[in-house]
């Protein structure tokens, strides 16, 4: 039956085509509003700047060469440090929380998850302003510490690097907890019990069973925290004070204060390259962990 065969084949071909057409609106949207602007920023990063700002279309490497100045390296290093620290703290705080939620009775889980997400119902800027009130000299945090007798005079909290990290951890903790919850929820408790039965130490259960099996969630959470942290600018701007400029603030400064769009674009691309490199690194690690857990 060749005719039936061919009609079946064409139906199959149609079926395989259909998803492509369905993707067109999305593709068009991403091309117009993501890819084109991105290429524009790339082009601007090789242009030079007019006296009052604006863009002169003369090709130059000068913007990228400018970034070799040690001060830019310092800002970059500072941003990397804040983002890494934020990710680490989010992991240490987030993992036990995710574990407890995933192991709590099933009917309570939606409530705990809702509570984790609840802050997102308020604007991020407003919540950051609230932190300014909490952290300032006569703020809530200092009153509490004084009342508990832990300190004898108010600590300097607001406008310090610590305030920036507190703000970042607060802002991005849910991004860590949710993927970890998903991963822990999928972790079969029987495997952990088996490890105990085989006389694994506490540490071995953790490093050889729990961590490898929840690795996808750990990597996902770390990526979701690290990327917005390194590019954040509201938090260091409002909580950071005079000495906590991050790369996001630098980009904002180049664009809006000194009106050097070409340099700002170059900084943006360097940031993007770093984020890409970090993501690739994380994925590699995740892949390796998956593979090795199979091997054992």
């Amino acid at each position, binding site marked *: 039956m060749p005719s039936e065969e061919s009609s079946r084949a064409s139906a199959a071909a149609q079926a395989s085509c259909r998803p492509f057409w369905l993707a067109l609106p999305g593709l068009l949207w991403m091309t117009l509003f993501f890819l084109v602007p991105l290429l524009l920023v790339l082009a601007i990063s090789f242009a030079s700047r007019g006296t009052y700002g604006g863009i002169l279309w003369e090709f130059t490497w000068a913007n990228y060469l400018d970034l070799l100045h040690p001060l830019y390296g310092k800002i970059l290093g500072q941003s990397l440090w804040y983002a890494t620290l934020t990710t680490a703290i989010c992991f240490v705080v987030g993992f036990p929380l995710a574990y407890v939620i995933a192991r709590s009775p099933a009917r309570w889980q939606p409530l705990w998850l809702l509570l984790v997400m609840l802050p997102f119902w308020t604007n991020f800027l407003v919540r950051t302003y609230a932190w300014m009130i909490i952290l300032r000299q006569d703020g809530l945090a200092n009153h509490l510490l004084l009342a508990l007798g832990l300190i004898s005079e108010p600590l300097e909290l607001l406008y310090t690097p610590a305030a920036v990290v507190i703000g970042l951890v607060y802002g991005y903790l849910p991004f860590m907890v949710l993927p970890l919850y998903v991963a822990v929820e999928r972790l079969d408790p029987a495997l952990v019990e088996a490890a105990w039965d085989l006389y694994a130490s506490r540490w071995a259960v953790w490093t050889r069973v729990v961590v490898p099996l929840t690795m996808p969630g750990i990597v996902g959470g770390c990526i979701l925290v690290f990327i917005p942290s390194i590019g954040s600018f509201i938090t260091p701007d409002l909580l950071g004070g005079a000495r906590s400029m991050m790369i996001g603030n630098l980009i904002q400064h180049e664009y809006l204060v*000194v009106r050097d769009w070409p340099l700002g674009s170059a900084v943006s691309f360097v940031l993007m390259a770093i984020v890409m490199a970090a993501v690739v690194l994380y994925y590699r690690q995740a*892949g390796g962990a998956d593979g090795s857990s199979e091997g054992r």
Partner: protein
Amino acid sequence: MRPVIRPIALCLCWLWLAGGLTACGQGSGDDATGTRPVLHYFTWSDYVGPEIIREFERREQVKVVIDTFSSNEELLAKLQSGATGYDVAVPSDFMVAIMIQQGLLTELDRTELSNASTLEPHLQSLPFDPERRYSVPYLWGTVGIGYDSRIIETPPDSWSILWDPRYKGRISMLNDQREVFGAVLRSMGQSMNSTDPQVIEAAKERLLRQKPLVKTYTSDHYDQLLASGEVVLAQGWGGPVARAMADRPSIRYVVPKEGATIWADCLVVLRTAPQKRLAMRFINYLMEPAVAARTSERLRFASASRLAREMVAASTRDNPAVYPPLDQLARLEWMRDVGKGIRLYDRAWTELKMQ
């Protein structure tokens, strides 16, 4: 790859959903304009009295949409990036000169601006727009130091107090390159409009030495920092310092003896304004003596209108942070467009902020 992607995608969905719902809530207010004409007013943050705007909306049967910026540079950057649709903006003196030079402004229609002629004598003809073809001075004042007289008992009279290590971590400076460099240049006995690279380099060195003492560079909420005691010295415009006085009566304001900025924020109509006639009427309304006096009371800035000075309360008129005493004029300096020299300031400011 796949096991990593799936939880990420799932979480993004949840979080975006949660965030998206709040975003929906914010958007709904803007659509209630109907067919009334809309005026777009681009001004400094914290620079409008809502009831004054509402009165204009009622009177003219229009809607006024307000957008804000927090430095002259930001205003210029946003307009240069092609932001159109704004009708009236409020640049300061030197930025008026740049905006005229860049062809961003429309000539004003004198016939619509009956209230714009009764200005304070010293604001009648300003160097950046001597015939007032493009701009009407709106509010004016000085830049000085706000300080807490309970902590700093001998009243300071010099910018050098901002370099005093006793107040480490309790000093705030404006987040404004021209003002910060202006203060240090005056303290060095130089003009705040210097374009000499060596002078600017020396000024930057001084500011780098000061930086460890500075808690934060902010142009927006140093009034709250002063009022809450977070800082005891703040470089600032008089108005916010005067507002801090209301909350903490021990706050004082001084214009240092080495000299300081005199500024005037001006009302201008943009070349791309969709509502030019309405824009003229809005400017005329803001300059109406009674309205100007109320604005002055509310924002704690001196009005450029001579008639408004007579209408404000004596406590406002006599507060040197609000109405600068006229005998100070001799040591005050106008900020000017420094042309290509702005690159020197841009670079020095970036280096200072990054350090």
